[in-house]
Protein backbone atom coordinates (compact mmCIF):
# COMPACT_ATOMS: atom_id res chain seq x y z
CA UNK A 1 0.00 0.00 0.00
CA UNK A 2 1.09 3.53 -0.61
CA UNK A 3 1.49 5.48 2.59
CA UNK A 4 -0.56 8.63 2.03
CA UNK A 5 0.67 10.32 5.19
CA UNK A 6 4.43 10.01 5.47
CA UNK A 7 5.73 10.70 8.97
CA UNK A 8 7.63 13.85 7.94
CA UNK A 9 4.29 15.64 7.40
CA UNK A 10 3.39 15.36 11.06
CA UNK A 11 6.44 17.29 12.30
CA UNK A 12 6.34 20.69 13.91
CA UNK A 13 6.35 23.66 11.50
CA UNK A 14 9.84 24.67 12.59
CA UNK A 15 11.26 21.35 11.51
CA UNK A 16 9.72 21.41 8.05
CA UNK A 17 12.56 23.23 6.31
CA UNK A 18 15.14 21.09 8.09
CA UNK A 19 13.86 17.84 6.75
CA UNK A 20 14.78 18.91 3.24
CA UNK A 21 18.46 19.12 4.13
CA UNK A 22 18.62 16.21 6.56
CA UNK A 23 16.71 13.47 4.82
CA UNK A 24 18.61 13.45 1.56
CA UNK A 25 20.84 10.65 0.45
CA UNK A 26 19.47 7.18 0.92
CA UNK A 27 15.84 8.23 0.50
CA UNK A 28 14.55 9.29 -2.89
CA UNK A 29 13.01 12.53 -1.77
CA UNK A 30 12.02 15.63 -3.66
CA UNK A 31 15.45 17.24 -3.74
CA UNK A 32 17.08 14.12 -5.05
CA UNK A 33 14.32 13.64 -7.53
CA UNK A 34 14.75 17.15 -8.83
CA UNK A 35 18.50 16.80 -9.07
CA UNK A 36 18.16 13.41 -10.67
CA UNK A 37 15.59 14.47 -13.24
CA UNK A 38 17.73 17.49 -14.12
CA UNK A 39 20.72 15.28 -14.69
CA UNK A 40 18.72 12.75 -16.64
CA UNK A 41 17.23 15.47 -18.81
CA UNK A 42 20.68 16.84 -19.51
CA UNK A 43 21.94 13.42 -20.51
CA UNK A 44 18.95 12.85 -22.80
CA UNK A 45 19.62 16.19 -24.47
CA UNK A 46 23.32 15.46 -24.92
CA UNK A 47 22.44 12.04 -26.27
CA UNK A 48 20.05 13.53 -28.81
CA UNK A 49 22.61 16.07 -30.00
CA UNK A 50 25.20 13.34 -30.37
CA UNK A 51 22.63 11.21 -32.18
CA UNK A 52 22.22 13.90 -34.85
CA UNK A 53 25.99 13.91 -35.37
CA UNK A 54 26.02 10.13 -35.42
CA UNK A 55 23.42 10.06 -38.21
CA UNK A 56 25.55 12.33 -40.39
CA UNK A 57 28.66 10.31 -39.60
CA UNK A 58 26.88 7.03 -40.39
CA UNK A 59 25.64 8.39 -43.70
CA UNK A 60 29.09 9.67 -44.63
CA UNK A 61 30.87 6.44 -43.70
CA UNK A 62 28.27 4.21 -45.30
CA UNK A 63 28.14 6.13 -48.57
CA UNK A 64 31.90 6.27 -48.80
CA UNK A 65 32.44 2.65 -47.80
CA UNK A 66 29.89 1.34 -50.26
CA UNK A 67 30.89 3.78 -52.97
CA UNK A 68 34.59 3.06 -52.73
CA UNK A 69 33.94 -0.59 -53.59
CA UNK A 70 33.27 0.62 -57.15
CA UNK A 71 36.95 1.13 -57.65
CA UNK A 72 37.83 -2.50 -57.09
CA UNK A 73 36.38 -3.19 -60.54
CA UNK A 74 36.46 0.19 -62.23
CA UNK A 75 39.40 2.55 -62.45
CA UNK A 76 39.10 6.05 -61.00
CA UNK A 77 39.80 7.53 -64.41
CA UNK A 78 37.00 5.57 -66.05
CA UNK A 79 34.44 6.50 -63.42
CA UNK A 80 35.22 10.21 -63.42
CA UNK A 81 36.33 10.84 -67.01
CA UNK A 82 34.32 8.47 -69.16
CA UNK A 83 30.85 9.30 -70.46
CA UNK A 84 30.01 5.70 -71.23
CA UNK A 85 27.45 4.51 -68.67
CA UNK A 86 26.38 1.06 -69.75
CA UNK A 87 26.33 -1.17 -66.65
CA UNK A 88 24.95 -4.18 -68.54
CA UNK A 89 28.23 -4.27 -70.47
CA UNK A 90 30.49 -3.31 -67.58
CA UNK A 91 31.00 0.32 -68.54
CA UNK A 92 30.80 2.64 -65.57
CA UNK A 93 31.56 6.17 -66.67
CA UNK A 94 29.71 8.75 -64.57
CA UNK A 95 30.98 11.91 -66.26
CA UNK A 96 27.66 12.41 -68.08
CA UNK A 97 25.76 12.63 -64.81
CA UNK A 98 28.31 14.84 -63.07
CA UNK A 99 28.35 17.26 -66.00
CA UNK A 100 24.58 17.02 -66.23
CA UNK A 101 24.16 18.03 -62.59
CA UNK A 102 26.62 20.91 -62.97
CA UNK A 103 24.99 22.13 -66.19
CA UNK A 104 21.47 21.84 -64.79
CA UNK A 105 22.40 23.69 -61.60
CA UNK A 106 24.19 26.50 -63.41
CA UNK A 107 21.38 26.94 -65.92
CA UNK A 108 18.81 26.98 -63.09
CA UNK A 109 20.81 29.55 -61.16
CA UNK A 110 21.33 31.64 -64.30
CA UNK A 111 17.56 31.89 -64.72
CA UNK A 112 16.46 32.03 -61.11
CA UNK A 113 18.95 34.42 -59.46
CA UNK A 114 18.05 37.57 -61.44
CA UNK A 115 14.32 36.89 -61.23
CA UNK A 116 14.43 36.06 -57.51
CA UNK A 117 16.47 39.13 -56.63
CA UNK A 118 14.06 41.34 -58.57
CA UNK A 119 11.11 39.71 -56.78
CA UNK A 120 12.91 40.22 -53.46
CA UNK A 121 13.52 43.92 -54.22
CA UNK A 122 9.89 44.19 -55.25
CA UNK A 123 8.73 42.68 -51.96
CA UNK A 124 11.12 44.55 -49.71
CA UNK A 125 11.36 47.98 -51.31
CA UNK A 126 8.43 48.69 -53.60
CA UNK A 127 5.22 47.06 -52.50
CA UNK A 128 2.76 48.87 -50.26
CA UNK A 129 2.45 47.18 -46.84
CA UNK A 130 -0.93 45.51 -47.46
CA UNK A 131 0.33 43.81 -50.62
CA UNK A 132 3.53 42.76 -48.87
CA UNK A 133 1.62 41.20 -45.99
CA UNK A 134 -0.43 39.31 -48.55
CA UNK A 135 2.43 38.13 -50.78
CA UNK A 136 4.93 37.03 -48.15
CA UNK A 137 2.72 34.27 -46.68
CA UNK A 138 1.80 33.20 -50.21
CA UNK A 139 5.48 32.75 -51.09
CA UNK A 140 5.99 30.88 -47.80
CA UNK A 141 3.18 28.53 -48.77
CA UNK A 142 4.72 27.99 -52.20
CA UNK A 143 7.90 26.72 -50.53
CA UNK A 144 5.78 23.93 -49.02
CA UNK A 145 4.38 22.60 -52.31
CA UNK A 146 5.68 19.03 -52.86
CA UNK A 147 8.38 18.78 -55.50
CA UNK A 148 6.63 15.98 -57.33
CA UNK A 149 3.79 18.41 -58.04
CA UNK A 150 6.23 20.72 -59.78
CA UNK A 151 7.45 17.73 -61.77
CA UNK A 152 3.90 16.89 -62.78
CA UNK A 153 3.37 20.51 -63.75
CA UNK A 154 6.45 20.40 -65.95
CA UNK A 155 5.40 17.14 -67.52
CA UNK A 156 1.84 18.08 -68.36
CA UNK A 157 2.02 21.82 -69.00
CA UNK A 158 5.58 22.87 -69.71
CA UNK A 159 6.81 20.10 -71.97
CA UNK A 160 3.92 20.19 -74.48
CA UNK A 161 4.39 23.94 -74.62
CA UNK A 162 8.15 23.63 -75.17
CA UNK A 163 7.50 21.05 -77.87
CA UNK A 164 5.41 23.44 -79.92
CA UNK A 165 7.88 26.28 -79.40
CA UNK A 166 11.07 24.40 -80.18
CA UNK A 167 9.70 22.04 -82.81
CA UNK A 168 11.45 19.02 -81.30
CA UNK A 169 9.60 15.74 -80.92
CA UNK A 170 10.85 15.37 -77.38
CA UNK A 171 11.28 18.49 -75.33
CA UNK A 172 12.54 16.68 -72.24
CA UNK A 173 15.94 17.92 -71.24
CA UNK A 174 18.02 20.54 -69.52
CA UNK A 175 15.82 23.52 -70.35
CA UNK A 176 12.58 21.91 -69.16
CA UNK A 177 14.26 20.67 -65.97
CA UNK A 178 15.84 24.02 -65.21
CA UNK A 179 12.57 25.89 -65.72
CA UNK A 180 10.82 23.50 -63.33
CA UNK A 181 13.64 23.88 -60.82
CA UNK A 182 13.50 27.66 -61.20
CA UNK A 183 9.81 27.68 -60.31
CA UNK A 184 10.69 25.48 -57.34
CA UNK A 185 13.61 27.42 -55.86
CA UNK A 186 12.31 30.88 -56.70
CA UNK A 187 10.12 31.24 -53.59
CA UNK A 188 13.00 30.07 -51.38
CA UNK A 189 15.61 32.42 -52.81
CA UNK A 190 13.33 35.43 -53.00
CA UNK A 191 11.94 35.05 -49.48
CA UNK A 192 15.38 34.76 -47.85
CA UNK A 193 16.78 37.61 -49.99
CA UNK A 194 13.69 39.61 -49.10
CA UNK A 195 14.47 39.11 -45.41
CA UNK A 196 18.10 40.12 -46.02
CA UNK A 197 17.07 43.29 -47.87
CA UNK A 198 14.51 44.19 -45.21
CA UNK A 199 17.21 43.78 -42.56
CA UNK A 200 19.32 46.58 -44.09
CA UNK A 201 19.03 49.47 -41.62
CA UNK A 202 16.80 52.31 -42.76
CA UNK A 203 19.50 54.86 -42.00
CA UNK A 204 21.42 53.59 -45.03
CA UNK A 205 18.47 54.39 -47.25
CA UNK A 206 17.91 57.75 -45.58
CA UNK A 207 21.56 58.63 -46.08
CA UNK A 208 21.41 57.67 -49.74
CA UNK A 209 18.26 59.71 -50.33
CA UNK A 210 19.78 62.64 -48.43
CA UNK A 211 22.72 62.55 -50.83
CA UNK A 212 20.24 63.04 -53.66
CA UNK A 213 20.10 59.48 -54.95
CA UNK A 214 16.82 58.24 -56.35
CA UNK A 215 15.34 54.86 -55.63
CA UNK A 216 17.13 53.04 -58.45
CA UNK A 217 20.50 54.34 -57.29
CA UNK A 218 19.71 53.63 -53.65
CA UNK A 219 18.72 50.04 -54.32
CA UNK A 220 21.58 49.25 -56.69
CA UNK A 221 24.40 51.12 -54.96
CA UNK A 222 23.45 50.94 -51.30
CA UNK A 223 20.79 48.38 -50.38
CA UNK A 224 21.85 45.44 -52.51
CA UNK A 225 25.57 45.68 -51.59
CA UNK A 226 24.60 45.89 -47.92
CA UNK A 227 22.40 42.80 -48.23
CA UNK A 228 24.99 40.96 -50.32
CA UNK A 229 25.82 38.27 -47.75
CA UNK A 230 22.20 37.43 -47.06
CA UNK A 231 21.46 37.15 -50.77
CA UNK A 232 24.49 34.89 -51.24
CA UNK A 233 23.17 32.73 -48.42
CA UNK A 234 19.78 32.50 -50.13
CA UNK A 235 21.42 31.63 -53.45
CA UNK A 236 23.49 28.84 -51.91
CA UNK A 237 20.44 27.40 -50.16
CA UNK A 238 18.51 27.49 -53.44
CA UNK A 239 21.46 25.88 -55.20
CA UNK A 240 21.64 23.08 -52.63
CA UNK A 241 17.95 22.45 -53.18
CA UNK A 242 18.38 22.41 -56.95
CA UNK A 243 21.32 20.00 -56.84
CA UNK A 244 19.59 17.55 -54.53
CA UNK A 245 16.17 17.69 -56.14
CA UNK A 246 15.18 14.33 -57.52
CA UNK A 247 11.57 13.70 -58.41
CA UNK A 248 10.79 16.95 -60.19
CA UNK A 249 13.90 16.46 -62.33
CA UNK A 250 13.26 12.78 -63.04
CA UNK A 251 9.90 13.60 -64.55
CA UNK A 252 11.16 16.13 -67.08
CA UNK A 253 14.78 15.39 -67.95
CA UNK A 254 14.28 12.33 -70.12
CA UNK A 255 16.54 9.90 -68.21
CA UNK A 256 18.91 8.94 -70.99
CA UNK A 257 22.59 8.52 -70.23
CA UNK A 258 23.96 10.69 -72.99
CA UNK A 259 25.74 14.03 -73.15
CA UNK A 260 23.19 16.58 -74.30
CA UNK A 261 24.05 18.44 -77.50
CA UNK A 262 21.21 20.90 -77.09
CA UNK A 263 18.88 22.16 -74.38
CA UNK A 264 16.14 19.86 -75.65
CA UNK A 265 18.09 16.59 -75.69
CA UNK A 266 17.05 14.01 -73.09
CA UNK A 267 19.87 13.49 -70.61
CA UNK A 268 20.31 12.50 -66.97
CA UNK A 269 21.74 13.92 -63.77
CA UNK A 270 23.16 12.23 -60.66
CA UNK A 271 19.91 12.21 -58.69
CA UNK A 272 17.67 11.06 -61.54
CA UNK A 273 20.02 8.26 -62.47
CA UNK A 274 20.21 6.99 -58.90
CA UNK A 275 16.48 6.91 -58.39
CA UNK A 276 15.73 5.30 -61.74
CA UNK A 277 18.23 2.48 -61.38
CA UNK A 278 18.67 1.76 -57.67
CA UNK A 279 15.58 -0.43 -57.27
CA UNK A 280 16.49 -2.77 -60.10
CA UNK A 281 20.05 -3.68 -59.11
CA UNK A 282 21.56 -6.16 -56.67
CA UNK A 283 23.07 -4.58 -53.59
CA UNK A 284 26.38 -6.42 -53.98
CA UNK A 285 27.12 -5.39 -57.54
CA UNK A 286 29.48 -2.88 -59.07
CA UNK A 287 26.46 -1.16 -60.59
CA UNK A 288 25.01 -0.52 -57.15
CA UNK A 289 28.39 0.58 -55.78
CA UNK A 290 28.66 3.02 -58.67
CA UNK A 291 25.27 4.50 -57.76
CA UNK A 292 26.39 4.88 -54.14
CA UNK A 293 29.57 6.58 -55.32
CA UNK A 294 27.42 9.03 -57.26
CA UNK A 295 25.45 9.60 -54.08
CA UNK A 296 28.68 10.31 -52.27
CA UNK A 297 29.62 12.92 -54.89
CA UNK A 298 26.27 14.63 -54.29
CA UNK A 299 26.86 14.49 -50.56
CA UNK A 300 30.33 15.99 -50.93
CA UNK A 301 29.00 18.85 -53.08
CA UNK A 302 26.25 19.69 -50.61
CA UNK A 303 28.61 19.59 -47.62
CA UNK A 304 31.04 21.89 -49.45
CA UNK A 305 28.19 24.36 -49.88
CA UNK A 306 27.54 24.33 -46.15
CA UNK A 307 31.20 25.18 -45.56
CA UNK A 308 30.74 28.07 -48.00
CA UNK A 309 27.67 29.27 -46.10
CA UNK A 310 29.53 29.16 -42.80
CA UNK A 311 32.43 31.14 -44.21
CA UNK A 312 29.97 33.72 -45.52
CA UNK A 313 28.32 33.99 -42.12
CA UNK A 314 31.68 34.37 -40.37
CA UNK A 315 32.66 37.10 -42.81
CA UNK A 316 29.31 38.83 -42.35
CA UNK A 317 29.69 38.62 -38.58
CA UNK A 318 33.06 40.31 -38.64
CA UNK A 319 31.87 43.16 -40.84
CA UNK A 320 28.83 44.11 -38.85
Amino acid at each position, binding site marked *: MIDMNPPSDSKAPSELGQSFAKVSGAKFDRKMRLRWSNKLFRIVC*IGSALFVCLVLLCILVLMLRTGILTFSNVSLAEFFFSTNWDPENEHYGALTFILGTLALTSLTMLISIPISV*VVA*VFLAEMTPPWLRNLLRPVLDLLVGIPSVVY*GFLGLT*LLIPWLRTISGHDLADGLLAASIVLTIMVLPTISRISDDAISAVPNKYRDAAYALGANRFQTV*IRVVLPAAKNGIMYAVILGMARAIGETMAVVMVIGNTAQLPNSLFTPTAVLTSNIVMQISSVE*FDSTWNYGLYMMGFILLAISLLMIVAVRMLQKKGGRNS
Partner: protein
Amino acid sequence: MSMSMKKQANPVPAYAFGKRRGASVLMDRLFTGLVWGVGIVVILFIIGLLFLLLEKGLPQLSWDFLYGLPSEIEEGGGIGPALFNSFYVLFISLLISIPIGLAAGIYLAEFAPNNKLIEIVRICVEGLSSVPSIIFGLFGIALFVEFFEIGLTILGAAVSLAFLNLPVLTRVTEESIRAVPVELRNASFALGSTHLQTIRRVLLPVAMNGIMTGICLTAGRAFGESAVIILTAGVSTSGEMWDFNLFSPGGTLAVHLWYVQSEAIVPDAQEIAQKTTAVLIFFALLINIVFRVPLWLNTRKNQA
Protein backbone atom coordinates in the same frame (compact mmCIF):
# COMPACT_ATOMS: atom_id res chain seq x y z
CA MET B 1 28.72 80.27 -50.97
CA SER B 2 31.96 80.34 -52.86
CA MET B 3 31.25 76.85 -54.19
CA SER B 4 27.94 77.82 -55.70
CA MET B 5 29.48 80.97 -57.10
CA LYS B 6 32.06 78.86 -58.89
CA LYS B 7 29.40 76.50 -60.22
CA GLN B 8 27.35 79.30 -61.61
CA ALA B 9 30.42 80.72 -63.21
CA ASN B 10 30.94 77.52 -65.16
CA PRO B 11 27.95 76.66 -67.38
CA VAL B 12 29.12 73.22 -68.53
CA PRO B 13 28.61 71.27 -65.27
CA ALA B 14 25.13 72.73 -64.87
CA TYR B 15 24.20 71.47 -68.29
CA ALA B 16 25.77 68.07 -67.67
CA PHE B 17 24.04 67.87 -64.31
CA GLY B 18 20.68 68.57 -65.90
CA LYS B 19 21.22 65.96 -68.53
CA ARG B 20 22.33 63.34 -66.05
CA ARG B 21 19.37 64.13 -63.89
CA GLY B 22 17.04 63.42 -66.79
CA ALA B 23 18.77 60.14 -67.50
CA SER B 24 18.70 59.02 -63.90
CA VAL B 25 15.03 59.88 -63.52
CA LEU B 26 14.36 57.81 -66.62
CA MET B 27 16.41 54.94 -65.21
CA ASP B 28 14.50 55.16 -61.97
CA ARG B 29 11.17 55.01 -63.77
CA LEU B 30 12.33 52.09 -65.91
CA PHE B 31 13.64 50.27 -62.85
CA THR B 32 10.43 50.78 -60.92
CA GLY B 33 8.38 49.58 -63.85
CA LEU B 34 10.60 46.57 -64.39
CA VAL B 35 10.56 45.49 -60.77
CA TRP B 36 6.79 45.90 -60.45
CA GLY B 37 6.24 44.08 -63.72
CA VAL B 38 8.55 41.16 -62.99
CA GLY B 39 7.36 40.84 -59.40
CA ILE B 40 3.67 40.76 -60.25
CA VAL B 41 4.08 38.57 -63.35
CA VAL B 42 6.27 35.97 -61.61
CA ILE B 43 4.07 35.60 -58.56
CA LEU B 44 0.87 35.52 -60.60
CA PHE B 45 2.49 33.01 -62.96
CA ILE B 46 3.35 30.53 -60.21
CA ILE B 47 0.01 30.93 -58.45
CA GLY B 48 -1.75 30.62 -61.78
CA LEU B 49 -0.01 27.34 -62.55
CA LEU B 50 -0.99 25.87 -59.19
CA PHE B 51 -4.51 27.17 -59.62
CA LEU B 52 -4.66 25.47 -63.01
CA LEU B 53 -3.65 22.16 -61.45
CA LEU B 54 -6.21 22.53 -58.67
CA GLU B 55 -8.90 23.51 -61.17
CA LYS B 56 -8.28 20.42 -63.30
CA GLY B 57 -8.36 18.04 -60.35
CA LEU B 58 -10.63 19.37 -57.62
CA PRO B 59 -14.01 19.32 -59.41
CA GLN B 60 -13.56 15.65 -60.30
CA LEU B 61 -12.85 14.56 -56.74
CA SER B 62 -15.24 12.22 -55.04
CA TRP B 63 -15.29 10.27 -51.81
CA ASP B 64 -14.92 7.04 -53.76
CA PHE B 65 -11.65 8.30 -55.16
CA LEU B 66 -10.27 9.48 -51.84
CA TYR B 67 -11.29 6.31 -50.08
CA GLY B 68 -11.11 3.70 -52.85
CA LEU B 69 -8.47 1.09 -53.47
CA PRO B 70 -6.03 1.65 -56.31
CA SER B 71 -6.34 -0.58 -59.33
CA GLU B 72 -3.61 -1.75 -61.66
CA ILE B 73 -5.61 -2.56 -64.77
CA GLU B 74 -9.16 -1.29 -64.61
CA GLU B 75 -10.44 2.25 -64.56
CA GLY B 76 -11.73 4.00 -61.49
CA GLY B 77 -8.97 3.23 -59.02
CA GLY B 78 -8.80 5.32 -55.86
CA ILE B 79 -6.00 6.57 -53.66
CA GLY B 80 -7.24 5.44 -50.25
CA PRO B 81 -4.26 3.37 -49.05
CA ALA B 82 -1.75 5.87 -50.47
CA LEU B 83 -3.45 8.76 -48.70
CA PHE B 84 -3.58 6.78 -45.48
CA ASN B 85 0.09 5.81 -45.82
CA SER B 86 1.04 9.45 -46.34
CA PHE B 87 -0.36 10.43 -42.99
CA TYR B 88 0.75 7.24 -41.26
CA VAL B 89 4.38 7.61 -42.39
CA LEU B 90 4.29 11.32 -41.57
CA PHE B 91 2.92 10.62 -38.10
CA ILE B 92 5.53 7.96 -37.26
CA SER B 93 8.40 10.02 -38.60
CA LEU B 94 7.30 13.02 -36.53
CA LEU B 95 6.87 10.76 -33.50
CA ILE B 96 10.52 9.78 -33.84
CA SER B 97 12.03 13.07 -34.90
CA ILE B 98 10.21 15.60 -32.69
CA PRO B 99 11.50 14.36 -29.29
CA ILE B 100 15.07 13.88 -30.54
CA GLY B 101 15.05 17.12 -32.50
CA LEU B 102 13.65 19.11 -29.58
CA ALA B 103 16.11 17.59 -27.09
CA ALA B 104 19.07 18.25 -29.38
CA GLY B 105 17.88 21.81 -29.96
CA ILE B 106 17.46 22.39 -26.23
CA TYR B 107 20.96 21.04 -25.63
CA LEU B 108 22.51 23.36 -28.20
CA ALA B 109 20.62 26.37 -26.88
CA GLU B 110 20.84 25.75 -23.14
CA PHE B 111 23.56 23.36 -22.05
CA ALA B 112 26.20 23.46 -24.74
CA PRO B 113 29.45 25.16 -23.74
CA ASN B 114 31.14 27.35 -26.32
CA ASN B 115 33.97 25.19 -27.47
CA LYS B 116 35.35 23.45 -30.53
CA LEU B 117 33.36 20.27 -29.91
CA ILE B 118 30.04 22.07 -29.94
CA GLU B 119 31.14 23.91 -33.04
CA ILE B 120 31.53 20.50 -34.68
CA VAL B 121 28.06 19.46 -33.48
CA ARG B 122 26.63 22.63 -35.04
CA ILE B 123 28.40 21.95 -38.33
CA CYS B 124 26.99 18.41 -38.23
CA VAL B 125 23.45 19.69 -37.79
CA GLU B 126 23.84 22.19 -40.61
CA GLY B 127 25.55 19.62 -42.78
CA LEU B 128 22.79 17.11 -42.20
CA SER B 129 20.16 19.69 -43.11
CA SER B 130 21.81 20.21 -46.49
CA VAL B 131 22.09 16.53 -47.38
CA PRO B 132 19.92 15.85 -50.46
CA SER B 133 16.87 13.76 -49.67
CA ILE B 134 17.86 10.99 -52.04
CA ILE B 135 20.94 10.32 -49.89
CA PHE B 136 18.63 9.54 -46.97
CA GLY B 137 16.90 7.13 -49.32
CA LEU B 138 20.18 5.38 -50.14
CA PHE B 139 21.01 5.31 -46.44
CA GLY B 140 17.59 3.79 -45.72
CA ILE B 141 18.14 1.07 -48.33
CA ALA B 142 21.54 0.17 -46.92
CA LEU B 143 20.22 0.18 -43.35
CA PHE B 144 16.80 -1.48 -43.62
CA VAL B 145 16.88 -3.51 -46.82
CA GLU B 146 20.46 -4.70 -46.58
CA PHE B 147 21.41 -4.64 -42.91
CA PHE B 148 18.14 -5.48 -41.13
CA GLU B 149 16.71 -7.26 -44.19
CA ILE B 150 13.13 -6.19 -43.64
CA GLY B 151 12.60 -5.08 -47.23
CA LEU B 152 10.65 -2.02 -48.37
CA THR B 153 8.48 -1.06 -45.40
CA ILE B 154 6.60 1.77 -43.80
CA LEU B 155 8.95 1.59 -40.83
CA GLY B 156 12.05 2.07 -42.99
CA ALA B 157 10.47 5.02 -44.76
CA ALA B 158 9.36 6.64 -41.51
CA VAL B 159 12.79 6.34 -39.89
CA SER B 160 14.60 7.63 -42.98
CA LEU B 161 12.15 10.50 -43.14
CA ALA B 162 12.74 11.18 -39.44
CA PHE B 163 16.47 11.51 -40.13
CA LEU B 164 15.61 14.00 -42.86
CA ASN B 165 13.49 16.03 -40.43
CA LEU B 166 15.91 15.96 -37.51
CA PRO B 167 18.31 18.78 -38.41
CA VAL B 168 15.55 21.23 -39.31
CA LEU B 169 13.74 20.59 -36.04
CA THR B 170 17.00 20.92 -34.09
CA ARG B 171 17.89 24.24 -35.66
CA VAL B 172 14.43 25.71 -35.31
CA THR B 173 14.22 24.69 -31.64
CA GLU B 174 17.64 26.12 -30.90
CA GLU B 175 16.86 29.42 -32.58
CA SER B 176 13.44 29.80 -30.94
CA ILE B 177 14.81 29.10 -27.46
CA ARG B 178 17.68 31.50 -27.99
CA ALA B 179 15.16 34.18 -28.94
CA VAL B 180 13.44 34.00 -25.53
CA PRO B 181 14.25 37.21 -23.61
CA VAL B 182 16.91 36.67 -20.97
CA GLU B 183 14.77 38.44 -18.31
CA LEU B 184 12.23 35.61 -18.38
CA ARG B 185 14.91 33.03 -17.82
CA ASN B 186 16.51 35.03 -15.01
CA ALA B 187 13.15 35.58 -13.32
CA SER B 188 12.49 31.85 -13.37
CA PHE B 189 15.88 31.08 -11.83
CA ALA B 190 15.37 33.79 -9.24
CA LEU B 191 12.16 32.07 -8.16
CA GLY B 192 14.28 29.07 -7.33
CA SER B 193 13.34 26.77 -10.14
CA THR B 194 15.82 24.28 -11.48
CA HIS B 195 17.10 24.29 -15.02
CA LEU B 196 14.64 21.61 -16.10
CA GLN B 197 11.70 23.48 -14.56
CA THR B 198 12.81 26.68 -16.27
CA ILE B 199 13.00 24.94 -19.62
CA ARG B 200 9.68 23.17 -19.21
CA ARG B 201 7.61 25.94 -17.68
CA VAL B 202 9.15 29.07 -19.16
CA LEU B 203 11.39 28.59 -22.18
CA LEU B 204 9.38 25.99 -24.10
CA PRO B 205 5.99 27.72 -23.76
CA VAL B 206 7.47 31.05 -24.88
CA ALA B 207 9.39 29.45 -27.74
CA MET B 208 6.38 27.35 -28.79
CA ASN B 209 5.42 29.69 -31.65
CA GLY B 210 8.72 29.27 -33.41
CA ILE B 211 8.88 25.55 -32.72
CA MET B 212 5.39 25.02 -34.12
CA THR B 213 6.35 26.84 -37.32
CA GLY B 214 9.35 24.56 -37.62
CA ILE B 215 7.27 21.44 -37.06
CA CYS B 216 4.75 22.58 -39.65
CA LEU B 217 7.52 23.26 -42.17
CA THR B 218 9.01 19.81 -41.65
CA ALA B 219 5.60 18.14 -41.70
CA GLY B 220 4.77 19.82 -45.00
CA ARG B 221 8.11 18.81 -46.45
CA ALA B 222 7.81 15.24 -45.20
CA PHE B 223 4.27 14.96 -46.54
CA GLY B 224 5.36 15.81 -50.07
CA GLU B 225 8.66 13.96 -49.95
CA SER B 226 8.86 11.27 -52.57
CA ALA B 227 12.48 10.32 -53.31
CA VAL B 228 13.08 8.90 -49.83
CA ILE B 229 9.81 6.96 -49.87
CA ILE B 230 10.34 5.44 -53.31
CA LEU B 231 13.70 4.06 -52.23
CA THR B 232 12.74 2.86 -48.75
CA ALA B 233 9.03 1.98 -48.97
CA GLY B 234 8.56 1.13 -52.63
CA VAL B 235 5.96 2.45 -55.05
CA SER B 236 3.10 0.14 -54.13
CA THR B 237 0.80 -0.13 -51.14
CA SER B 238 -0.47 -3.24 -49.42
CA GLY B 239 -3.77 -2.69 -51.20
CA GLU B 240 -5.82 -2.55 -48.02
CA MET B 241 -7.32 0.37 -46.20
CA TRP B 242 -6.28 1.07 -42.59
CA ASP B 243 -3.26 -1.19 -42.73
CA PHE B 244 -1.37 -0.29 -39.57
CA ASN B 245 1.27 -2.97 -40.07
CA LEU B 246 4.67 -1.30 -39.90
CA PHE B 247 6.19 -3.88 -42.22
CA SER B 248 3.89 -3.53 -45.20
CA PRO B 249 4.97 -1.58 -48.30
CA GLY B 250 4.23 2.09 -47.87
CA GLY B 251 3.84 4.02 -51.12
CA THR B 252 2.53 7.48 -50.19
CA LEU B 253 0.45 9.91 -52.19
CA ALA B 254 3.42 11.77 -53.66
CA VAL B 255 4.94 8.47 -54.81
CA HIS B 256 1.59 7.36 -56.18
CA LEU B 257 1.43 10.48 -58.33
CA TRP B 258 4.83 9.73 -59.81
CA TYR B 259 3.98 6.07 -60.30
CA VAL B 260 0.67 6.75 -62.00
CA GLN B 261 2.16 9.39 -64.23
CA SER B 262 5.23 7.44 -65.36
CA GLU B 263 4.73 3.70 -64.95
CA ALA B 264 1.08 2.76 -64.50
CA ILE B 265 -0.86 1.18 -67.34
CA VAL B 266 -4.41 2.03 -66.23
CA PRO B 267 -6.36 3.78 -68.99
CA ASP B 268 -7.41 6.70 -66.79
CA ALA B 269 -3.87 7.40 -65.49
CA GLN B 270 -4.00 11.03 -66.63
CA GLU B 271 -7.19 11.69 -64.74
CA ILE B 272 -5.96 9.92 -61.60
CA ALA B 273 -2.75 11.95 -61.74
CA GLN B 274 -4.68 15.22 -62.00
CA LYS B 275 -6.90 14.37 -59.07
CA THR B 276 -3.95 13.13 -57.01
CA THR B 277 -2.09 16.38 -57.69
CA ALA B 278 -5.06 18.39 -56.50
CA VAL B 279 -5.32 16.34 -53.30
CA LEU B 280 -1.57 16.65 -52.73
CA ILE B 281 -1.56 20.43 -53.14
CA PHE B 282 -4.66 20.72 -51.00
CA PHE B 283 -3.19 18.81 -48.07
CA ALA B 284 0.24 20.45 -48.35
CA LEU B 285 -1.42 23.87 -48.18
CA LEU B 286 -3.73 22.70 -45.41
CA ILE B 287 -0.85 21.50 -43.21
CA ASN B 288 0.91 24.83 -43.68
CA ILE B 289 -2.16 26.98 -43.11
CA VAL B 290 -3.60 25.10 -40.12
CA PHE B 291 -0.32 25.36 -38.25
CA ARG B 292 0.20 28.99 -39.14
CA VAL B 293 -3.19 30.48 -38.36
CA PRO B 294 -2.53 30.63 -34.58
CA LEU B 295 0.82 32.25 -35.34
CA TRP B 296 -0.68 34.95 -37.53
CA LEU B 297 -3.34 35.63 -34.95
CA ASN B 298 -0.64 35.92 -32.32
CA THR B 299 1.47 38.41 -34.27
CA ARG B 300 -1.68 40.41 -35.05
CA LYS B 301 -2.49 40.52 -31.37
CA ASN B 302 1.05 41.57 -30.47
CA GLN B 303 1.05 44.34 -33.04
CA ALA B 304 -2.30 45.72 -31.98
